[in-house]
């Protein structure tokens, strides 16, 4: 795993997420490139390094959000750990697996964020945002195969091993 290349990709994804995407698209139709990048790392990189990258990606999301610092870092770490387990059972290069894992991870992360925000503010009307989250998860899932294919083209500069880790381990 070449950290400099991954960091550049992460910075670009964060800037896109908090810039043009957030500016032009409502949350219902906004894909989450940072999450997709973290899941891609968890699916393809060495597990220990992938976990570190997922945590950093979450920390980056925390920087660009008004929520409690460390919340996304924890959730991205959990999503990354989940993806590492999934890739042992299923082929992570299958578009269906990529889309399903993106949907699950998005729903899990943003669902917990919504839940904690709801608990912290005591504002039960926030529950109406759940629909927007599911819609956002669907868009992210739809974008996942294309995103993974695009990033997968740069496997060599990203320092990814062609051999599956589960087979190697």
């Amino acid at each position, binding site marked *: 795993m070449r950290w400099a290349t991954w960091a550049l990709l992460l*910075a670009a994804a*964060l*800037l896109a*997420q*908090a*810039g*043009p995407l*957030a*500016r032009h698209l*409502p*949350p219902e139709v*906004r894909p989450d490139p*940072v999450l997709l990048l973290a899941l891609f790392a968890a699916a393809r990189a060495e*597990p*220990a390094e992938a*976990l*570190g990258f997922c*945590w950093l990606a*979450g*920390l980056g*999301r*925390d*920087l*660009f*959000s*008004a*929520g*409690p*610092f*460390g*919340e*996304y*870092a*924890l959730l991205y*770490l959990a999503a990354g*750990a989940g993806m*590492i387990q999934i890739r*042992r059972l299923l082929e992570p290069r299958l578009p269906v697996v990529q889309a399903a894992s993106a949907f699950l991870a998005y729903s899990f992360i*943003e669902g917990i*964020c*919504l839940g904690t*925000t*709801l608990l*912290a*503010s005591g*504002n039960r*009307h*926030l529950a*109406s*945002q759940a629909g*927007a*989250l599911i819609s*956002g998860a669907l868009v992210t899932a739809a974008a996942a195969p294309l995103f993974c294919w695009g990033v997968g083209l740069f496997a060599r500069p990203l320092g990814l091993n062609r051999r599956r*880790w*589960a087979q190697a*381990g």
Partner: protein
Amino acid sequence: MKLLSSKPGALLLKTLWVYLGLSLLLLILPIHWLAPARGAALWPFSLAQRVLFEGTAPIEEFPDRLTRLWGRAGREQELQNEVAKLRAQLAAEGERRRSAEMRLAQMDCLTPELQKRTVLSRVIGYDASPVRSSILLDRGAGQGVSRGAAVLCSGALAGMVASVTPLSARALLLDDPACKVMVRCERSRVMGVLEGGGGGSCLVKYIASNADLLPGDLFVTSGMDSLPDGVLVGVCTEAGGDSGEPLKWVTVRPSVDASQLEHVAVVIKPPAREGGN
């Protein structure tokens, strides 16, 4: 489980615990301890976002220019280039003029008292989370912006500053769940606490169930918190009835459309008087 007992599995588990501990530590630490580090980490990103926002106009024109370059030849090509260049200059001038007009419009909407205490700022980023609603401003502590300062757009309240770095500030918009503002109904003088409801709507809570409120009533700031008094906040869209409960809530639509925010005015604290009490 077989994986976790293997050598790479043990390393993975150890790594997971380390990051888990770090995340929990970050969550537990007080916000003001982390604020400087957070500001320092955000600094290069805020610079990049500023460049990104200001640099998108030439990029949008680039394919157009490329087509023109390849489509014609000779003198016609030169003339077309000249026209394109002039158009680009005109567009850039127009954009600059529009930007200046928008900034001036922000000032025109403010009372003379507030005009002396505001700093104009450009929105350079939005919230990455779909649950939260905040904006990143290109003015920070260096320009006098402080935590809790009011963020105004067209004279109405758009939100309040939640965190400040030397060169940028993050402001919570009114529909963010963490944003709480003391407000007053302009007609009936009923007071309540406005809380973000997400998705562009807000609630005003802690209102007596028999309070005189009607849809269409305007809500303004009460001046009982750090925000200036009498600034328009939003319009009541659903007043609710007397349910028999001691308190009720009403729904309010903020006056400022968060998706249209480009320039905002941030109210800064007046300079402290020397020898004052």
